[in-house]
Structures are given as structure tokens and as C-alpha cells.
């Protein structure tokens, strides 16, 4: 068979198949749509990655981390216990998906793996920073926690971290105030009497009926609690890194001041406050 004949036979077979099966080139709209879907999927994965990052930012750039000594034994246990691994996993999966979608766009293969991954991560970081500044991380986290039974929001986790009276932490709403005590209803609905002689003036400024506060101190029998300090549950506004650093600095200073109370001239309550494990941890904090 000559070369020319061979060429003709393939061309003829192909054209005959096209005729016989009435094949037509797929429309341009089909390919434009396919390309657009890939880009949309890329955008979606970057957006979901950004939500994941915004929630991670919320945890890391909040008093949860700034005052982690109050709720965790060490920095390591904070990272092990408080970091939203689910969201890290979501972020990882989304970045992988973003890379896959990017790679399958018309020219996506021309870019290196690192370029595509970093541009996706970079996109997510920028959007996440915006979401964080708008306070959207908290909203996403809370709404997901509210509407998804399988998901426990970071705020809910923090609530339960603070509802540990035996470990010296309480979370609840102030329902009554006297000269020497407070009446507080915790998030389980139990009523507590808090002795407040050891509170500082700054703590006392937080005392308002109906306000939800975090309390650290010492549990006593019969739903009584010696309050060594009060903290607002959630700040009204998003705190900046500088503000968080200042809050931390104050708390560390307070732990050092508390150590001065441990002498005999001070009462037993002050000594107990000074010896709280969380205060000891703060005193050794860098």
C-alpha cells in the first residue's frame, strides 16, 4: 500500500465516521462553560479556604490564644486542643482542589505546582484577612455551629473550656450583686455565689447585672466560688494584635502581683489566688 493511499484511508475512515454518526464539533459555548466552571470551582475553593483561614485567624488572633495559660497547660496543649484542625483539613483539601481546577484550565498546566498552590493560598489569605477584619470568621463559625449538628463552633468549645469549676474557671451571667459577693448563673443553668473580696478595681468595672463574664478562681463546696479575676466573655469589638498583647501583658503582670499576696499578712483567699496553676503558668510565661 502506498503512503498516499494509507493517508487517504485514515482520512476517509475518519470522514465516513463523522458522516455516519453525524458528528459535529462541540460548540464553543460548551468549552467556554467548561472553562468558566473550572475557574468558578477554583474561586469557590479559594473562598472556602478563606473561610477556613478566617476561623483559624479568629482563634489565633483572639484572647483564646493571648490568654491561653488560663485554659491550657501549655502552648503545645493549646495548639493541640484549640487549633481548628477540621478547618486546617478543609483548607488543605480546598487548596488541593484549587490546584486541580487551576491546572485543568486552558493554560493552567504552564504554571508550576508551587505557583498554583501559592496563588491559591495567597488568594485565600487575602480574602481571609478581609473576612477577619469584618469579623466574618466569628459569624461563619457561629452559624455553622448553630445549623450543623456535627460541627461544634470554636466559641462553643471555648464556652466549655471556661465551664470547668473544678479547674478554676466559670462562665455565666451576673444575676445579683452585693458588697462582698456576686450571684452568677453558669451556662449549664446552675447558680453560683462568687466571693469577690479579691477582685481588682478593673474587675469590678466589669460587674453589671446581665453581663456574661469569665471568672477564674477557686471552687468551694456548695456552689460557691472565690473569684480571683473577671474577664469579659466576648469583647464588643474585634481586638487588634496590639490590644491583645496589652491584655496579655496586664494578665502576666497581674500573676506576678498575685505572688506578692501569698505572704501570711494577706488572707487565705489571696494566697489561693496566687497559687492557682493558671497564675503560676502566667508567671513563667515568656
Amino acid at each position, binding site marked *: 500500500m502506498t*503512503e498516499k493511499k*494509507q*493517508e*487517504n484511508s*485514515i*482520512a*476517509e*475512515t*475518519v*470522514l465516513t*465516521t*463523522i*458522516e455516519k454518526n453525524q*458528528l459535529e*464539533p*462541540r*460548540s*464553543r459555548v*460548551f*468549552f467556554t462553560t467548561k472553562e468558566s466552571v473550572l475557574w468558578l470551582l477554583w474561586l469557590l475553593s479559594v473562598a472556602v479556604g478563606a473561610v477556613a483561614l478566617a476561623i483559624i485567624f479568629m482563634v489565633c488572633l483572639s484572647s483564646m490564644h493571648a490568654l491561653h495559660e488560663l485554659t491550657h497547660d501549655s502552648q503545645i496543649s493549646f495548639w493541640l486542643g484549640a487549633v481548628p484542625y477540621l478547618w486546617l483539613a478543609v483548607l488543605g483539601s480546598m487548596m488541593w482542589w484549587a490546584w486541580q481546577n487551576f491546572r485543568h484550565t*486552558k493554560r493552567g*498546566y*504552564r*504554571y*508550576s*505546582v508551587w505557583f498554583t498552590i501559592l496563588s491559591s493560598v495567597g488568594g485565600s489569605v487575602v480574602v481571609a484577612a478581609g473576612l477577619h477584619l469584618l469579623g466574618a470568621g466569628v459569624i461563619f463559625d457561629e452559624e455553622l455551629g448553630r445549623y450543623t449538628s456535627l460541627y461544634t463552633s470554636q466559641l462553643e468549645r471555648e464556652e466549655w473550656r471556661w465551664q470547668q469549676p473544678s479547674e478554676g474557671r466559670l462562665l455565666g451571667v451576673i444575676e445579683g450583686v452585693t458588697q462582698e459577693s456576686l450571684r452568677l448563673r453558669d451556662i449549664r443553668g446552675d447558680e453560683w455565689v462568687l466571693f469577690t473580696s479579691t477582685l481588682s478595681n478593673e474587675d469590678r468595672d466589669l460587674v453589671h447585672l446581665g453581663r456574661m463574664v469569665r471568672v477564674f478562681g477557686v471552687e468551694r463546696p456548695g456552689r460557691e466560688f472565690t473569684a480571683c479575676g473577671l474577664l469579659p466573655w466576648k469583647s464588643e469589638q474585634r481586638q487588634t494584635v496590639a490590644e491583645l498583647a496589652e491584655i496579655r501583658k496586664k494578665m502576666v503582670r497581674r500573676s506576678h502581683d498575685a505572688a506578692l499576696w501569698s505572704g501570711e499578712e494577706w488572707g487565705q483567699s489571696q494566697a489561693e489566688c496566687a497559687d492557682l496553676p493558671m497564675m503560676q503558668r502566667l508567671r513563667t510565661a515568656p
Partner: protein
Amino acid sequence: MEEKLQTDQEIVQHSLIEKESFAELITRYEQKLRRYVARLGVRTKDDQDDVLQNTFLKVYRNLNSYDPDLPFSSWVYRIARNEAISWYRHQRVRPEGYVVADSDEILALVAETVDSPEVVFDQALAATEVSRAVAGLEEKYRAVIILRYFEHKEYDEISDIMQIPLGSVGTLLYRGKKKLATVLKSFTMRSNEYTP
């Protein structure tokens, strides 16, 4: 009057209006692609026909997705490569390259690019041994070596055909050549051992 030779892009445009024009594209690329798929491991003529027919049918169906900024040949080679891969997946056989080339040319190319100048090949290595060495390479290395040294494609064309970044083409070629050099050197040493 002599008919003006049309570019591939022009024929693509005509084929979208008049399917008979598509025959011209098939004629232009059939022999090149036949050699290429053979080098990729599709050996018999019947199998090559199958792969080529599927390739051209796919090209036709996807004409509207062709990006005129790319050389048409890169796009058509990419489809042929994918079809060849599908073919040997379907056959459930390990792809084995079947390269027939001027062994001196390949040896010279490999020797000038490997790190160790002491790697001196026996120029008497037969084309079949070069073919065997290339065939024994991992698919990714074999694919770039075939495109670069047997199909004489530029780096950007290889990038478009294999849908990998330009940097990866260079890396795969460098590593592929090193591996090829090692295999060829072992062939040389083995043949020297048997020399009386």
C-alpha cells in the same frame, strides 16, 4: 494557478464550516503522528490506525476548544499522546517505547549534556540498543526524550503537549538523559566484557 498553502489555523476554521476540509489536516499530520504513536509503543499498523482514527475524531469533536495561540501541532500531538496512553491502558500492557533513530545523534546529545565527561559511549552502540535503553526508561522521562530528540520539539511545545510546566520539561529531560546515559554506559561495559 497554484493554490496558496493554508495554515493549520485556517484549515481549522474551514473545517468548522465544511467538514471535508478536515481531511487536509489529517493528511498533514497522519504520518508524523503515526511515527509518534509508534515511538510511544503502539506497534502494529492496525493499532496505530485505531489510535489515529480516535485521535482525529477527537480533534474534530474538539475543534472549538483549540486555542489559536498554541501551535496546532502541539494540540494534535497532545491528543495523540492521550489516545496512545488510553490505548495501552485499555490493552492493559505496560507502554514500551519503540524508538528507531539515528543512535549516533542520540548518543551525542546525551553525552554533551550529562555531568560526567568521563562517560564516553561506545559509538558502535547499535540503534536497537539505544531503542532498548529509551524503552526501559520511566514513562515520564521517555515521553520528553521522545518528543525532544525523536520528534525534535522545542521545550514550550513539549510543555504544551505533555501539559506540564516549562521548568518541569527541563528537569525531566535532564534527569531522563542522565538515566539514559547510565543505561547506555552499562550496555557499553557489558559489551566490552564479552569482547575477546
